[in-house]
């Protein structure tokens, strides 16, 4: 922590004095993207495209802010807490040292969660496999995030760059069965760009490594607790939990990702066309941390994301993006055998079979109009958006197959009014969105050999976590009306600009019980946040 503090101070000391004649506080990252749509791209070499802007800003731009975000309400996913409060500290900076372009960020956030359950993993939606308990309880998590990128021009046309990201964190549940998760993410991306006249092209490739260690513990041994092995689509195997050193559940999750990206830009000054393509190929493995080779399951996914935008001057922007994700979950056929050399029982692999599939696609399009004289002198702006998504999931133990599918359509509208009073700038942004799900099936059970074999549950255990399945599906397919209001105030001080952002919003979801379509409940959730920051 001490080393991190020193690095932030060094970074801040590199910033040059405030530019003369124009306030840095007039700029935000959102406004700067109109000058360089590739500013926050995954390709760090595109920082060079902000050269003119950085000169205007005196060679550097830093945004330091701290805030609190609170969410509460009944409209939530199965693993969302009933309420949460998030305290955040964030600093982000761009600077130029001679020919070298640098960017860096440091973030710290601490979240208090109330009545959270099914959080066997920090991000349960990323994998179909999870070891978890179902009892709601308070939890908290704490993360440190570091990012550093550097870009170096090689002559007039080429730029090379590298981007490093590191995240470390912990999450802990405060009620039996209580899990302690320790996380580490590391990402490394070299990049290259080429500029010739109005054309700019860039490629990037990288690796990401995510590691999560999960340990379960039971403090109160006077009551029975159950732990669930989830295998996809909330199918599960439950067993009673006994806490001792030898039986305590310790799970690891390791994800290795291979990243690639390409981008193309045509920029005549008045017309900017941008196209980006990103690929994320991930292999996820879960197992026990004991040295016995037990494997819980693998999940392989491929995410392809393409986006394009067409910008006319500072007033018009048309954007569209399409993403497609395909995933496959695998279980291992293992048998515990005595190793004659070490006299230790080990799990030996014999086969791996595909049991889970997940396909998701999403299309978004939006149009933004701004009444703007310059990057920082804007009267008002409005954005209208449209989106659609499609998802299919299936879990199969042939001949038994469980399927789920749904589609969503959404529309959104936001409006921003900019007001300028001497040293005080005000932005007011009301927004609204509506999402609906025209059709879908929560859980279809198919016997693919019906004439030959009948399928029944064994014992009294359910093999699907029905409550979680219904809550998740109800949340994802609800008709949702959301509305929000954002107020941003900024004031120029002697050497910096101070700003504050107040956000308030809410969702109202009309959730249908798929087992009884006539049963529709209205659930709500609200959020509010306060952020105070400095720009210099």
């Amino acid at each position, binding site marked *: 922590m001490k080393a991190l503090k020193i690095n932030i101070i060094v970074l801040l000391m590199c910033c040059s004095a405030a530019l003369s004649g124009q306030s840095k506080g007039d700029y935000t990252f959102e406004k700067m993207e109109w000058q360089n749509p590739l500013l926050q791209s995954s390709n760090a070499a595109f920082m060079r495209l902000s050269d003119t802007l950085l000169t205007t800003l005196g060679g550097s731009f830093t945004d330091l802010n701290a805030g609190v975000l609170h969410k509460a309400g009944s409209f939530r996913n199965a693993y969302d807490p009933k309420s949460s409060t998030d305290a955040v500290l964030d600093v982000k900076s761009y600077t130029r040292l001679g020919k070298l372009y640098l960017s860096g960020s440091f973030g710290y956030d601490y979240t208090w969660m109330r009545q959270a359950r099914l959080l066997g993993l920090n991000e349960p939606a990323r994998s179909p496999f999870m070891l978890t308990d179902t009892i709601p309880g308070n939890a908290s998590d704490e993360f440190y995030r570091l990012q550093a990128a550097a870009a170096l021009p090689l002559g007039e046309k080429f730029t090379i760059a590298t981007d490093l990201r590191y995240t470390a964190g912990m999450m802990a549940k405060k009620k039996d069965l209580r899990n302690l998760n320790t996380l580490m993410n590391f990402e490394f991306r070299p990049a290259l760009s080429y500029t010739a006249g109005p054309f700019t092209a860039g490629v990037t490739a990288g690796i990401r490594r995510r590691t999560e260690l999960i340990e379960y513990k039971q403090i109160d041994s006077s009551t029975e607790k159950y732990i669930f092995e989830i295998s996809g689509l909330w199918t599960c195997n439950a067993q*009673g939990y006994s806490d001792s050193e030898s039986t305590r559940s310790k799970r690891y999750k390791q994800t290795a990702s291979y990243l690639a990206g390409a981008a193309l830009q045509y920029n005549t000054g008045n017309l900017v066309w941008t196209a980006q393509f990103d690929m994320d190929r991930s292999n996820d493995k879960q197992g026990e941390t004991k040295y016995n080779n037990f494997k819980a399951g693998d999940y392989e996914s*491929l995410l392809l994301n393409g986006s394009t935008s067409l910008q006319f001057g500072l007033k018009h922007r048309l954007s569209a993006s399409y993403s497609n994700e395909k995933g496959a979950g695998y279980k291992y056929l293992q048998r515990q055998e005595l190793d004659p050399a070490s006299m230790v029982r080990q799990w030996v692999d014999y086969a791996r079979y595909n049991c889970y599939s997940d396909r998701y696609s999403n299309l978004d399009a939006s149009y933004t109009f701004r009444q703007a004289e310059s990057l920082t002198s804007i009267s008002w702006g409005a954005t209208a958006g449209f989106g659609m998504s499609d998802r299919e999931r299936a879990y199969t133990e042939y001949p038994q197959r469980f399927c789920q599918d749904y589609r969503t359509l959404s529309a959104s509208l936001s409006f921003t009014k900019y007001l300028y009073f001497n040293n005080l700038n005000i932005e007011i942004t009301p927004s609204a969105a509506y999402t609906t799900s025209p059709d879908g099936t929560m859980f279809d059970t198919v016997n693919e*050999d019906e004439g030959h074999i009948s399928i029944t549950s064994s014992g009294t255990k359910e093999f699907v976590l029905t409550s979680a399945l219904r809550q998740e599906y109800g949340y994802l397919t609800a008709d949702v009306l959301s509305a929000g209001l954002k107020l941003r105030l900024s004031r120029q001080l002697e050497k910096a600009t101070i700003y504050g952002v107040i956000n308030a919003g809410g969702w109202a979801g009309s959730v249908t019980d798929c087992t009884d379509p006539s049963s529709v409940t209205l659930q709500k959730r609200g959020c509010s946040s306060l952020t105070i920051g400095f720009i210099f």
Partner: protein
Amino acid sequence: MKRIFAILVSAMLLASCIEDSIEKASLKIRISFPEGTEQAVAESISLEDLNITISNKSLPFNYSCHPDENGEIEMELGCGKYDLLASVEYESGLSANTSASEFILTSEGIIQDDGTTGAPVLDLTLNIAKPASIIIRELYYHGSSTPEGANYTNDRYIELYNNGAVREYLDSLCVCTIYPHNSTSGNNPWAGRDTIPIAGMCWMIPGNGTQYPIEPGQSCVLAFCAVDHTNRATSRLDMSRADFGFYDPLLSKHEIAAGIPALTRIIAAQGTAWTLSIHSPAVAVFRPEHGVAAYLADPSLWERYEIGKTSGTKYWHIAKDWIVDGIECADTPQKSVKRLPTSVDASYIYMESAHYSGKVITRREKGMAGGVMKYKDTNNSAEDFITDVAPNPHFNR
């Protein structure tokens, strides 16, 4: 430049393809009568009546089907790990079963014990169940807790019952658990053999041959510690009413109330207490064919090292035909490789409640006959027992 770009893109896309296909595997099951089956018995059992249940060990659901008149059936399943049980019970009391424990089926065949892949065929021989007179009616192995919440295992017991129609004698009846102490997933080196190893200590009901009769419908409770646990454990069992206690003065962890006869520890093993697993014991009640004295007098015949070893721990063995009754208790379906032969227990049973729950497994009632209760006894614990019930030992005191 263009060609290189095209090749790079193609290579990237090919390398990143996600395979998403369900692999199916063929399985053929062939069930036959054992050699020497009497004609009358073979004619009483129709192989088509056998109910084949294949348990998926990944998720708690079963596949059910029936073979043809020749006892054969062929099907397609997904690759996975399964247990198979085939059983039939007739109203006359005649029953038959057979099983295959934890086999791994891949698209290429069934994984054998030595790790090689064999043909996807299961050849199974029926066990014609012979109802026994002396059965285990109730087994309490999970343990409970003290009023303060600590784990407590001294209140456990085994209850024997005369399910027959005539008086039997308990003298020289032996009680033990089968090795390994806990159920596992994986291979059992002693599987398929005619003798099975005892795990640790073995106990015998004493007597001169006619000292301890048990009448039809009567129980006999064998207590781990035959004392009153009413104030010690949440189970509130008074084991000072038991018929016998597992007690030896050399075992510091065992207790016995005054007036209760002690079982005789005929195989000492090691430790200060009898190891009755709280997770998954395989309990057997047996009587050596030529008597206990003759059995113990010949360690060269009955005491052996583990298969494939020539040093280390030696285990006393018993012939599977000596077993009067036995129960295979598994911890979970994922850890249920069989220790008892299928002729003793075709399947296994497991508790859904957590350890130290204070709950027991108890035999299903079949109905009254001749004024006494008869219990279900098809040599298939999955069918014969109910799990996770409150203890209800039938005391004689």
